[in-house]
């Protein structure tokens, strides 16, 4: 089986992660109600005729994808894979509101056409004139990880030499407001702002130019707090690793009651491991783990952990294996294992 090498990691987020190359040195916790993305100048990357119909999520996805392909030196990938939790929620809101306002008449086509979840993948392909495998995964908080799994399988089985894989979600205008209202009513709801962002990664079976390896991905719908550590142990064993082999753990803590899953590991098997918590700077959204994956990639590339992300005071000189663990409301768990090349 071939190895899945990572050649590029590009992220548009609530932090200056697109233009700024300092790996979150100037990042800060998001204290506003929403973690809105810091948008690049899209006109530098997308033709004006195409850009005018694109909602923020599509623009973020297309530009992050384009930049990722550039950095990975991939002209046309053999597969384009996108994960998204809410798809193009802004156009969905627009279309559905028009449906109600106009008494189901006078439905303008643009927002409907652009509201489908696979719009980002389609626009990337259209921009590249790429007719290769094109797949969009929509599965809550494991949307991106489902895409990663697909990318890994395509490369491992030699079905594709080069794969562009990413995740994207946009805030929209109304869904995010409803989301906040619901969370505020919870006894211990999510404590980080609702956010948005896009991350894309160029992967290939070629090692030259790569800085990390996607070793393994596992997703599972439910597991009890008591069983999470043994589940992880089995995952690591399957990859020939022990808990102490993990040099940094990136966890998707968002401050809600379900953070006990993370605390369980932090206080036991990863007590002496650098612990990273990223959603305070990225915000929470269904594909927020893309930010964690991007941070994990750059951690391995640069061999450093940004201070803003470090939860404990433990650091290492060498980072060989990085583990990402994310879950949402006690469901949609994912383990992602990255290793240095």
């Amino acid at each position: 089986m071939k190895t899945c090498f990572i050649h590029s990691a590009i992220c548009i987020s609530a932090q200056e992660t697109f233009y700024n190359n300092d790996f979150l040195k100037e990042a800060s916790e998001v204290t506003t109600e929403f973690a809105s993305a810091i948008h690049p100048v899209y006109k530098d990357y997308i033709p004006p005729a195409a850009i005018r119909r694109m909602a923020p999520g599509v623009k973020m996805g297309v530009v992050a994808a384009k930049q990722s392909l550039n950095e990975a030196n991939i002209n046309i990938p053999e597969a384009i894979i996108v994960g998204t939790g809410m798809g193009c929620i802004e156009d969905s809101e627009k279309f559905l509101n028009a449906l109600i306002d106009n008494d189901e008449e006078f439905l303008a086509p643009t927002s409907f056409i652009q509201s489908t979840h696979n719009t980002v993948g389609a626009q990337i392909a259209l921009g590249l004139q790429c007719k290769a495998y094109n797949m969009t995964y929509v599965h809550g908080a494991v949307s991106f990880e489902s895409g990663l799994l697909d990318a890994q399988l395509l490369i491992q089985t030699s079905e594709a030499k080069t794969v562009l894989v990413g995740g994207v979600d946009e805030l929209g205008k109304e869904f995010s407001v409803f989301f906040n209202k619901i969370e505020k009513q919870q006894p211990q709801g999510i404590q980080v702002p609702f956010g948005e962002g896009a991350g894309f990664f160029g992967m290939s079976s070629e090692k030259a130019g790569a800085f990390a390896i996607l070793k393994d991905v596992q997703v599972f719908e439910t597991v009890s707090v008591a069983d999470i550590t043994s589940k992880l142990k089995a995952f690591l064993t399957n990859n020939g690793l022990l808990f102490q082999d993990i040099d940094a753990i990136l966890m998707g803590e968002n401050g809600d009651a379900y953070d006990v899953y993370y605390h369980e590991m932090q206080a036991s098997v990863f007590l002496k491991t650098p612990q990273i918590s990223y959603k305070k700077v990225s915000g929470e959204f269904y594909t927020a783990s893309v930010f964690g994956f991007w941070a994990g990639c750059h951690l391995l590339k640069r061999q450093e952990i940004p201070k803003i992300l470090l939860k404990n005071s433990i650091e290492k000189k060498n980072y060989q294996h990085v583990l990402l663990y994310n879950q949402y409301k006690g469901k949609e768990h994912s383990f992602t294992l990255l290793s240095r090349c």
Partner: protein
Amino acid sequence: METLRQELKENIIEQLNLEDFTVDDIADDDRLFGDGLGLDSIDALELIVMLDKNYGIKLTDPKEGKEIFVSIAVLAEYIATHRTK
């Protein structure tokens, strides 16, 4: 007629997200499709919906669109003659 032309320009800019255009950028005789504003087939659908919603004009024959959507001047003329609201 001048008011209608102005209204059409404003609506087209808003409906079709022509972010780089202002009303002053669109001359009454500029071609809407092709070399002029560069509108495309999806925009034509948007314009058909706009005619129905704002002016009560239902275009059933797509060929009609080609003749009507030539320019703001031609479109305004057609609307003034056929509008039901």
